[in-house]
């Protein structure tokens, strides 16, 4: 089962290494990891999507909490999850295909970020399932390159970390 875990950390050197090292040495599976500074420049927020059962999730939270640099850890409830991932994808695209791809972009809520004679680069910010559908739609054209940021997430409504 996938869990989305939000972690607030002191913005110190080496903190990311400590967290990724902890996941590696205790055998927890990271699906994706995204990190960035918060409104307080001394604090960063890390979003980790990890795989595991309830026991593993509990251990992940407890072990993360033991790290001195970790301020807060919370597994976001699945039913209140507001999650987004940014994907840039470069696909083959000739003149004839261009209108079709523009239509797909419009349909999926993606932006067209770059166009060349043979390619088109699309940009989509969405949740995981929408991104998966989008990728499927583009496959027939020939995907040249894909880059994804990893999931960032907040809790819906007033509640939060």
């Amino acid at each position: 089962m996938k869990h989305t875990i939000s972690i607030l950390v002191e913005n110190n050197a080496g903190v990311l290494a400590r967290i990724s090292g902890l996941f590696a040495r205790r055998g927890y599976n990271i699906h994706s990891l995204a990190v960035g500074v918060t409104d307080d420049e001394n604090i960063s927020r890390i979003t980790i999507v990890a795989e595991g059962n309830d026991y593993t999730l509990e251990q992940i939270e407890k072990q993360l909490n033991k790290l001195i640099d970790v301020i807060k850890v919370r597994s976001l409830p699945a039913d209140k999850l507001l999650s987004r991932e940014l994907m840039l994808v470069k696909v083959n695209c000739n003149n004839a295909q261009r209108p079709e791809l523009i239509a797909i972009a419009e349909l999926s809520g993606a932006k067209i970020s770059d166009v060349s004679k043979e390619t088109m680069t699309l940009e989509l910010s969405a949740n995981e399932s929408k991104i998966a559908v989008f990728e499927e739609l583009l496959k027939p054209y020939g995907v040249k390159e894909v880059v994804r940021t990893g999931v960032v997430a907040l809790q819906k409504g007033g509640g939060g970390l």
Partner: protein
Amino acid sequence: MGIKITVAESLVKCLETEGITKIFGYPGAAICPFYDKLMQSNIQHILVRHEINAGHAANGFARITGKPAVCVATSGPGATNLITAIATAYMDSIPMVIITGQVKTEQIGRDVFQEADITGAAEPFVKHSYLIKDAESVPEIVKKAFYIAGTGRPGPVLLDIPMDVQLEEIDFEYPESVEISSYKPKNEGNKLQIKRVADAVKEAEKPLICAGGGLFTSNAREIMVEIAEKAGIPVICTMMGISVMPYDHPLFLGMIGMHGRKTPNRAISECDLLILLGARVGDRAVMGMKNHHNLKVIHIDIDPAEIGKNLPVSIPVVGDLKAVLTQISEAVEPKRHKDWTEYLQELKSSENIIHQTPEIGVNPAAFLDELNKLLPDRCVISADVGQNQIWTANNIKLNSGRFITSGGMGAMGYSVPAAIGAKSACPEAEVIAICGDGSFQMQSMELATMIQHGIVVKIIIMANNRLGMVRELQTSLYDDRLTAVFLDGSPDFVKLADAYGIGGEYVSNISEAKTALENLINSDKPYVLQVKVDENERSVL
């Protein structure tokens, strides 16, 4: 405004302010600025003969004082040699502050001479670490290091300080206290949980306390005994919990585990309420435990991550043991559990079997019985790792002394340097290291440290010319195909001791044990006993 001094000098002042009187170390180029200033201080530096032993000595020192102890090494190999000692302290939750020199800041990352990323390498084994690049932050970081190492679940904290930083001048002022917003160890236990504990104890018919090393850390031994007596609860211990309760106490049953005694293992399989106190349910401790359906488990620990990690728990309590047990002692009702305790006491006394005298050498249990008769009230027994550890754990009968060993890591070569640390912390105590002929050869260089610094540690070497624990494993699990366990080529240890100016003698049968042990105890200098043990002797006798 503080005074202007170098970081090296300020480090020394920080240690002095923390009440550090002795440190264990080994110098090198990158830590020279610190040593240069240490010279002017009253802090005694004990020069070990290998960095790992600086770590183990600090470990032994910290176990006796209960406060963070300090060891020092240089960059590169000096620092990496400390890793096993850091890991040993981490596994057993021992408070330590480790200071290593690092190459100059501008050289970091260029693979220069004696450069090693020690904060990176030691990361899995430290409670926290700092690579200090900002000279002005040194006093605050040192204060934080002692605070982190000594509070909550204690552990090693590493300070890696580049040489150029050590030489920088700063405005020195040592903070009186520090705040770490992301680190707030919990002290008291949740009141509701305490009530649940008291209710569970009241309902239980066969309650049992399993005492771990955390009781030493939290200085909670007396309150634990008080509760056991008040509520009529028998006590078993883990390897780390040995000597937490007087051996002869009628409620004390002995050590559990795959190498433990029959009675405690029986007790843990038959109890209906298991109260784990500062014990992390190590795999070797609960290996003998039978699966039960109606068992209720109370787990009290300062580290929430230990609760439920290896054993499902019915009532978790997070907090400092002393604080939590004080709350519990008020809440529990007096009870006897007469049938249960008498049944277990009978089992325990039936274990006192007469030791068979082997054809070759001494029976280790019989030998340790002789030692038991001679031990003074204030003593520290430092056991190594292997068969010698199990013999000692199961047969040493301490009523007021202290037992130390490398419980979690099982690091061979621990006993002598740890004994050096313990003796340095408590010179009045009789400190005896018990090791095997394998482990002794991992630490024999420390005989020089003992002589140089006048540290009177006594050493008993249980010599069977084998790596006995591995031999035993090969005998039982590998059809007796023995390989790489023969210690042929070992020196005569008494002669080796003599070369250092240390007295000693041989014990080759039990009739010689008493006099030899008297000589060992009565000596006011270090002393080495080489005890002949049959190569086929088993660890659980």
